[in-house]
């Protein structure tokens, strides 16, 4: 919402705090999604009708080289990179000041100041070094799997891509899908039922598992979409509540109908081999064909949003549901279908977890993917390919974070800190600009 037209005095128009200077630049995530604009109140404080006439055209463009440089510097890509940098720096500070070597060395700071600096350097470089090696390539690792962490990165990224797309798609229709977690759980549960309770020939089985997972997720997402469309129930609240209900539901099922009969533990039997994604790089790596599904999903969602009439409806509904309704679009149907598709994508993320890496269903199948999906979608600026790369970055954080936790003894929680900081900074370009003293490409009336 951050700065789209509606709440800004009309005269202010070109470039608002949320929309970075670059004319073609995507507005920030919230701006594209405008969940709030369609939310509780739904009535933007309309600027005076009179004021609108004042809206000017765009100012003329400079053509000097410095202008180009400034545009790049203030563009969204640069903001993203700088946001990552700032977040990593803050993470590094946290790592350093909680490292006993640093605090010990600081104990005699005036006796040997270099020792403190050395300790800080050692602490941060060890941590981030382990992070980097874990996420990409570690020549010192004993196993092949450890050596090429990049494939672990992709493995972690797979469900993040799918669930990130789920959030992204809903965003574009103005819905804030916080329910990826529940949809992943339901998707995995449905997939599990087909995957370990039914026997089917290879190929067909996996396909059936995927379809079942998509249906499970779609069902859970659809509830939120249906309630939003028919009763106006705010999807944020409904999806949060559905997350909790999903956890309880799957726990109940795992204790009863879905429990592995040979065990008294609340976990399911193992998936049949025919129901699982083939490993892409042999048994040494966990990377599985789910990644291909995820990439296909990116392509499909990208087409859907940008090239299809359905996507056109979605974008129109997301930006201005009332105008969409007046233009003959069925807004409520849009809400329902988008939540079905969004849920199905999250459900597929559940499938890649279950049939790709975990093989056994338990109540924890969604892990932190559900919430990571939101940050991934935000970092990806609600664009399919943006989401794809954001998911890979977060996959790298995850893969590297494991290595950092074990090899540098830095709690993986720091990754959550860094990730959330990245999203905060990206959402507030003026903050990053002020940190780096970047001037905006175009003069504009910002300041609130």
């Amino acid at each position, binding site marked *: 919402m951050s700065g789209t037209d509606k709440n800004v005095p009309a005269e202010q128009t070109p470039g608002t705090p949320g929309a970075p200077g670059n004319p073609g630049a995507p*507005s920030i995530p919230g701006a594209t999604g405008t969940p709030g604009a369609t939310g509780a109140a739904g009535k933007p404080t309309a600027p005076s009708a009179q004021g*609108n006439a004042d809206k000017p*055209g765009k100012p003329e463009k400079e053509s000097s080289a410095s202008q180009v440089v400034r545009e790049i510097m203030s563009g969204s890509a640069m903001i993203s990179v700088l946001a990552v940098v700032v977040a990593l720096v803050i993470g590094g500070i946290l790592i350093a000041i909680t490292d006993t070597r640093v605090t010990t060395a600081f104990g005699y700071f005036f006796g040997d100041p270099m020792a403190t600096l050395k300790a800080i350097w050692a602490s941060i470089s060890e941590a981030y070094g382990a992070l980097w090696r874990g996420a990409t390539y570690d020549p010192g690792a004993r196993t092949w799997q450890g050596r090429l962490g990049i494939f672990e990165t992709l493995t972690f990224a797979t469900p993040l891509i799918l669930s990130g797309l789920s959030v992204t798609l809903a965003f574009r229709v103005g819905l804030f899908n916080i329910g990826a977690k529940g949809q992943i759980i339901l998707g995995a549960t449905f997939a599990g039922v087909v995957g370990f309770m039914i026997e089917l020939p290879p190929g067909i089985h996996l396909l059936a598992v995927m379809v079942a997972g998509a249906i499970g997720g779609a069902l859970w997402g659809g509830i939120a979409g249906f309630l939003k469309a028919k009763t106006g129930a705010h999807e944020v609240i409904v999806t949060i509540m559905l997350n909790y209900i999903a956890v309880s539901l799957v726990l109940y099922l795992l204790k009863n109908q879905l429990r592995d009969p040979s065990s008294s533990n609340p976990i399911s039997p193992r998936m049949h081999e025919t129901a699982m994604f083939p490993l892409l790089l042999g048994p040494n790596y966990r990377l599985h064909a789910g990644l291909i599904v995820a990439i296909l999903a990116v392509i499909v969602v990208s087409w859907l949003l940008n090239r299809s009439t359905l996507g*056109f409806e979605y974008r129109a509904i997301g930006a201005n549901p009332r105008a969409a309704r007046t233009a003959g679009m069925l807004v409520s149907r849009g809400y329902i279908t988008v939540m079905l598709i969004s849920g199905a994508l999250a459900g597929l993320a559940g499938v890649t977890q279950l049939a790709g890496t975990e093989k056994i269903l338990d109540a924890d199948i969604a892990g932190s993917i559900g919430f990571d999906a939101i940050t991934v979608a935000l970092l990806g600026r609600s664009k399919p390919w943006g989401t794809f790369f954001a998911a890979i970055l977060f996959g790298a954080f995850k893969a590297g974070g494991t290595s950092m936790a074990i090899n540098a003894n830095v709690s993986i929680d720091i990754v959550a800190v860094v990730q959330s900081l990245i999203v905060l900074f990206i959402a507030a370009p003026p903050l990053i600009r002020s940190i780096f003293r970047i001037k905006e490409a175009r003069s504009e009336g910002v300041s609130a």
Partner: protein
Amino acid sequence: MAAPNVRCTSRDQYPRRWAKTLKLELRGITKSFGTLVANDHIDLVVESGQIHSLLGENGAGKSTLMNVLYGLYSPSSGQILVDDVPVNFSGPADAMAAGIGMVHQHFMLVPVFTVAENVALGAESTSFGGVLNLAETRRKIREISTQFGFDVDPDALVEDLPVGIQQRVEIIKALVRNSKILILDEPTAVLTPQETDELMDIMGQLKAGGTSIVFISHKLREVKAISDTITVIRRGKVVGSASPDASTTELAELMVGRAVNLTLNKADATPGAETFKINNLTVMNDAGQRLLDDVTLSVSQGEILGIAGVQGNGQTELTEAVLGLHKHVLGSITLDGKELVGKSVRQVLDSGVGFVPEDRQDDGLVGELSIAENLILDLYKSAPYSRAGTLNRAAIAKNAINKVAEFDVRAQSSQDAADTLSGGNQQKVVLARELSRPLKLFIASQPTRGVDVGSIEFLHKRIVAERDAGTPVVIVSTELDEVLELADRIAVLFAGRLMGIVPGKSSRALLGLMMAGLPVAEAQEQMKSQSESGTTEEGAQP
């Protein structure tokens, strides 16, 4: 939590409300937003106890100027003087403390608050510990109501009050705050002619009591009727001042900046078959209240039916019901004999209805989408713009180029977002879209609201051209002038009921009475008796 910069009007000043008058002066006020200069070195003097009108087109910068004066915007440069003393307003609180009050065009009332709460807000009487003492506020409201003959219940919820009363509440708000300079921003936009006259009366009383008034309007007739001085603003600059005796044409030219043709040249209608019929139409909201009550009318091919009425008397519901936007609809709406009630919006549009919604920003355009995309907003499913669920970008772009040229939409590129356009150009985009296919019915609500005069002429011509092409046209406007200008017949709605349908050349006074709730027969009766007794009201001249 009390914001420290709020200075509540102290009670001992209150009796002296009329004791003193204030003079207001603006020197070289400039206000720019980024590259846009909304106000350019504006000088203005409002003598104490005078009504000073600020005349200008929509978007000329009048509201911006008044927001500067009221402390809502801080000027980029220039100075404000109250009684020759320079003042510096950091917020409305300062302006109020200096004795300036404002009645905004869009009322600044909290709908879920009572009248008393709204009046108290920001200038609360409190007892110990910040506990509200609304009794004191109620007393003040009653006092002012008595003085001016307002009938305002301090305990009514504002959202339940008609707009006319809400405006009174706004005036009370300003008076309670001891305002000696009152800014009225387009106050007549929501009033019937009779209510407008009453407002003029009140303004007269206030002036007599010593209050200076800044009256902002683009309606020449009103400005001429009430002002002591008139200042005309165009494109952010003062272009001249005039006395109330100046002719309407002079003022109009000053305001628009060129010779304008105030009357539309249109041929008389040649109505054909009555293809669009509304029978006993009733529209209800979810709570079961009748927003439109048993309305029956019909429109012929090649005819413009104007629908007049004060805002909020069922016009919106009427047009939206035709489009299929309302859930609870009784009665029938037929087009070429086909029933429209119960059809989806898509089906209604597909049956040949062109629709221009009342609020183009909320309902007519998707601001974030490009102009090209907005030009196919309700055509995207039909050839050539899409095939098999896939958009045809080339066709969309080509259409945009054609339409932008045809309707003279001033944009850098048709790929720009629609909300980068000015109001007039946005309206052109909506009309270009709706008029670009074969129509069996054309409905336009407030087709020229917020549009500059140049564009108004153009848009009016397009609408008449559509009529002349044989399409039944329905125009809804709260601007009586516009209805009088365009319509071949005029229907008047009040409180959701049809007061009657009269010829397009009917008198303003008759329409005013109907807009105030008199059925056509009674209104004509009253007109007759008034002309007999010779007390023709000021607003009665057409």
